[in-house]
């Protein structure tokens, strides 16, 4: 339960220091994730595309960080670098491993990513079976997360028999079930209806509060970011840099429905929206004279 307050451990006095080192929050302990001067460039058809520029950032163990920014600013790229699926062009990425038994990080991908050749329960059990967890435990864990995501009835269905939102829930269940130290979530609730989104947000908070996980969560919804995060990282439009880091001054444990009514949340919403609006507009007119690649072109 001590995790609950880990995000709140950084009180106001830390804010100035955080601003000074451009996104690097000074952590008392060694940070779980440490990025220094991370840049990522892709070879595009018309020269290089700089997806990320000079990102420096510390994320504490057990912290819940939300990443917001205009489409195409490099959020997914950053997450993929953290997952080790992509290598940064320059800079240092340091992800600290605490425990040899649990997987370090698992990703909920932005696009449809559940394996078409496996049933829903096989998909959810995927990480567990790759680690050789014994069958009985696998079954129990899978049943738990299927129920949590409301997919119990579809355990033996194949993905082509599911709706888009259901597939996304399978993807969420798959990442949760493997119990990683770090959860990397790329707009995991984007294709869900409002009710399911709120339910899963609440569930995610409950899991996070109970399990010491570090979460990096990408979302386009400022509301969602405020509901969930300890800190919001606002990114600039192309090329992606850290524009601002905003602390969420709400107490834990949180109730996502109560958060909506909290006046601090609405103030925060306005603040983040102001930061984002400029960037979204810039992205629209093709910020800094370079045309950003179309969003989501990889999906």
């Amino acid at each position, binding site marked *: 339960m001590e995790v609950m307050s880990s995000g709140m451990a950084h009180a106001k006095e830390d804010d100035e220091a955080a601003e000074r080192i451009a996104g690097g929050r000074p952590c008392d302990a060694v940070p779980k994730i440490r990025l220094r001067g991370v840049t990522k460039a892709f070879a595009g058809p018309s020269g290089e595309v700089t997806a990320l520029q000079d990102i420096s950032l510390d994320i504490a163990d057990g912290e819940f960080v939300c990443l917001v920014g205009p489409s195409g600013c490099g959020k997914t790229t950053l997450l993929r670098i953290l997952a080790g699926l992509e290598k940064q062009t320059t800079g240092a990425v340091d992800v600290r491993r605490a425990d040899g038994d649990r*997987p370090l990080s698992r990703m909920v991908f932005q*696009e449809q990513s559940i394996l078409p*050749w*496996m049933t829903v329960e096989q998909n959810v059990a*995927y*990480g567990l079976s*790759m*680690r050789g967890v014994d069958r009985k435990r696998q079954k129990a864990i899978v049943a738990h997360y299927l129920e949590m995501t409301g997919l119990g009835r579809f355990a033996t269905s194949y993905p082509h028999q599911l709706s888009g939102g259901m597939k996304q829930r399978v993807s969420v269940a798959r990442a949760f079930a493997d119990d990683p130290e770090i959860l990397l979530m790329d707009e995991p609730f984007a294709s869900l209806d409002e009710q399911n989104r709120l339910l899963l947000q609440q569930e995610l908070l409950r899991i996070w509060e109970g399990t010491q996980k570090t979460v990096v969560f990408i979302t386009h919804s400022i509301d969602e970011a405020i509901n969930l995060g300890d800190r919001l990282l606002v990114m600039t439009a192309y090329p992606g840099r850290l524009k601002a880091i905003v602390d969420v001054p709400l107490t834990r444990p949180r109730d996502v429905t109560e958060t909506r009514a909290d006046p601090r949340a609405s103030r925060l919403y306005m603040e983040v929206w102001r930061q984002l609006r400029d960037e979204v507009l810039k992205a629209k007119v093709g910020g800094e004279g370079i045309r950003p690649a179309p969003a989501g072109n990889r999906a």
Partner: protein
Amino acid sequence: MKDIKRALSIASPLALLLLWEVLARIPSRLTHFVAPPSLVMVTVWQMALTGELWQHMGWSFLRVMLGFAAGALPGIAVGLMMGLIPTVRAALQPIVAATLPIPKTALLPWIILLLGVGESSRVTIIGIGVFFLVLVNTMAGVMGIDPIYLDVGRNFGARGWRFYRTIAFPGALPTIFAGLKLGLGTAYLLIVFAEQIGVREGVGYLIWQAYDTFDIERMFAGLLLTSLLGFLSMTALSALERRWVPWRS
């Protein structure tokens, strides 16, 4: 409307058989070269009674299955590796590209010199024919897997053999089956050719022996049995596909 379609699809082959029967029985130059279906059936029936029919079909089926397995399994294995590992692909691609276009039938004389006229040369030529088709399709299947699934495998800790088993193989399986079907077709093409010499049983032998003795009824019986074998094997393979690729529907 549906009934009419069904009736048509039954009636048209029957009409063709009838036409064939009539034409084959009107005395003409054609009569020497075309056996009427009724007589072909009688021949088949007699062969079934003497047990000769099962001999021919059994041997051909066995050879095809052995050759098919001998070609398909390494074809899948090499194809998976070529599809997944760029260095393996770079090393083997030119060899495959150079040997692929060789007509497999043209290899038979050399294979017989090498292995003799026994069963091994027949199984080998079928194996070679199947191998290339399965290899090329498996490789294409692996390379066609949506990269997101490769990422999922890597992110969820699938290494080595487990990666092949859970990502590369199932991901390529629909295309692998396309290759297997092509391979099976080629296998029956090759068996008729390969049973031309050095055998006393098999559907190919039946056809070539009928050729030597100018026995048109037997020749047509051989054609019928070969198609029947091919049809049954293909049906079995399709059933296997529906079982193993249940996510494709």
